[in-house]
């Protein structure tokens, strides 16, 4: 299965950016966010619709992510998966953005960005292993530049700047993409990174997923700002606000930002306006801090439903081919689960490995002490 779309040619990309820039400006002028596909699958920017193949690709990636999220809940309840942060409802925000990368690019995901990591190509089995707290989940594939999910908030942003600058120093056209949430955009590292990226013209794409909540704290308590994409202005870099539940819009905007970065035109901040429909983690109880009204209406905005309706209406998908695709995605997941089940448990001494290239005398000694214990 191909995980990646072809890179657009330079001229095509430049033209698309012209079109898109006009569209972003138009949306911003109305105080609105950029979108291509509205609720109900209604196309609001027909001139910006990507090829049918691309739309189908994005649909498949979102299905794979949704499959992980839904099965993850069940596996957690069965005690077969550890605590993990669900992301259902945010697939357009994660898959549409990550789909704009190739395997030569860097991805710095937060703990909630399983959908983005899967889209870039992180194997499902490794991802399950990570949330099972198995060292097999810490072993990132050698053919991907995806980092393990970041638990501390915002630390990944300056690191993405460094990776981007290293690519530039090596003379490649590769970019680095980093994720953060609305809560994370309050951290100092977020602001330092945006400033560094602007000042050093790093080929970086910053995705700010505004999903409404930082655990129990709503965005309005987090900040007085109402448009987080404006944060880019203070650093002299472009900021775009996009409907985070419209995968065609997130893909379109991110692809433009990625190509801009490849051309040496510097970083972009993209705010994807979405919603964390589910709790912070599977162990969290959101009824303590939010009401049903808070979440009402977001199901209709579901990114999968929206694209599905559109694809069916356009005939790109039929009831039959949709069912087949979903079946295929489900089978892919179950095969990966079986693989994850086959990973052996870690050995006790593994906790002292991989601290340094060569263990210090202190680690050698502690290893002996540990082995005496077991």
């Amino acid at each position, binding site marked *: 299965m191909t995980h990646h779309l072809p890179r657009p040619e330079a001229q095509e990309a430049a033209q698309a950016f012209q079109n898109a820039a006009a569209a972003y400006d138009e949306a911003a002028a109305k105080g609105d966010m950029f979108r291509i596909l509205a609720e109900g699958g209604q196309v609001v920017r027909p001139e910006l619709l990507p090829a049918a193949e691309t739309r189908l690709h994005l649909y498949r990636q979102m299905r794979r992510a949704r499959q992980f999220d839904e099965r993850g809940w069940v596996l957690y309840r069965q005690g077969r998966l550890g605590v993990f942060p669900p992301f259902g409802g945010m697939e357009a925000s994660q898959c549409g953005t990550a789909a704009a990368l190739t395997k030569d690019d860097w991805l710095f995901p937060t703990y909630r960005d399983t959908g983005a990591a899967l889209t870039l190509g992180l194997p499902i089995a490794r991802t399950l292993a990570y949330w099972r707290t198995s060292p097999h989940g810490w072993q*990132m594939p050698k053919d991907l530049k995806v980092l*393990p999910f970041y638990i501390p908030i915002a630390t990944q942003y300056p690191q993405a700047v460094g990776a981007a600058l*290293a690519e530039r120093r090596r003379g490649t056209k590769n970019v680095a993409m980093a994720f953060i949430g609305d809560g994370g955009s309050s951290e*100092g590292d977020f602001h330092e990174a945006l400033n560094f990226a602007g000042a050093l013209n790093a080929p970086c794409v910053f995705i700010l997923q505004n999903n409404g909540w930082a655990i129990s704290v709503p965005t309005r308590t987090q900040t007085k700002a109402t448009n987080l994409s404006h944060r880019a202005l203070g650093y002299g870099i472009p900021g775009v606000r996009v409907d985070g539940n419209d995968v065609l819009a997130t893909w379109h905007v991110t692809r433009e930002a990625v190509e801009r970065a490849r051309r040496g035109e510097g970083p972009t901040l993209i705010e994807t306006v979405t919603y964390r429909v589910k709790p912070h983690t599977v162990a969290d109880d959101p009824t303590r801090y939010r009401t049903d009204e808070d979440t009402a209406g977001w199901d209709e905005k579901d990114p999968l439903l929206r694209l599905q309706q559109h694809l069916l209406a356009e005939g790109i998908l039929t009831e039959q081919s949709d069912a087949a695709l979903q079946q295929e995605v489900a089978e892919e997941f179950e095969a990966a689960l079986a693989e994850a089940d086959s990973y052996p448990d870690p050995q006790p001494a593994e906790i002292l490995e*991989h*601290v*340094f290239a060569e263990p*210090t005398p202190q680690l050698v000694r502690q290893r002996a002490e540990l082995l005496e214990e077991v």
Partner: protein
Amino acid sequence: MTTETVTTRTMTMVAAINDALDIALARDPDVCIFGEDVGVMGGVFRATDGLQRKHGVERVFDTPLAEAGIVGMGIGMGLAGLKPVAEIQFAGFLYPALDQILSHLGRYRHRTRSRYHLPMVIRAPYGGGVHTPEQHADSPEAILAHTPGVKVVIPSTPSDAKGLLLAAIDDPDPVFFFESIKMYRSLKEDVQTGHYTLPIGKARIVKPGDDVTVICYGGMVEVCQKAAEAAAQAGIGVEVIDLRTLVPLDLGTILASVEKTGRVVIVTEAPRTAGFHSEISANIAEEAIEFLQAPIVRVTGFDAPYPPFTAIEDLYRPGPLRVARAIKKVMAY
């Protein structure tokens, strides 16, 4: 028979550091140096003087003023295969970057099972004795030594500084390189020209002696040498050990000396509680208590912020007199 000629040049410690950085830049295109004021100005202590002119702005560059950003960006550069050498202007300015260091720098190899490792060096001038303003004289080495996954190196001579810095840049893992501000220009010696390295994790016996072991590093080595000279006048043989690296710690050299002398004084300019001196003390208690003929004495700063009061600064930072008193105390027990 051929004789290998080793050429030398007289250098201060800061000149030796500059020489090491120059050599590292020349021999490896992946080495990059960055930080506040390191480029055009050559660093507030001139440790990077002339390097940008010689090696270009892509290799030696000024960053915005933000320590977390500097370390975080360096981590990303290291992930992508470069050898970042970051300068934090003063060790007391390191604190905003602690999240990057504790959460990531020390953990990357571990949390990716060696898929990624960080060959990063962070240089930071540290310590007192030169009458700096507030925050400029801190000695936070124990915080770093307590962080798994990072090495801590603190040289005390120009030759050591050069050889250890070149080793740190070659090291595949992150190394903190603390440079005593007081030592930057306080002594000169003949330093070997060209590339050479000293092993990280090997202490140096500065001066052998049979009666008391004095353990120190960095800016305190000079102080302890003076105290040892004074003790020698009184007929006390002091063995001065310069640790050179705290992580990994050369416990073997320490224990061999303690077995010989049976008396220990540990000297640092960091605050007393939970300092690295306590770590050494605990190791000796665990491994060599039967050889001790007197309680271990620590000579340290105090559990108070370092005072920037020129007139009384020397009360905080141990001087030869305090070390000499401690030597007397362990001898009299």
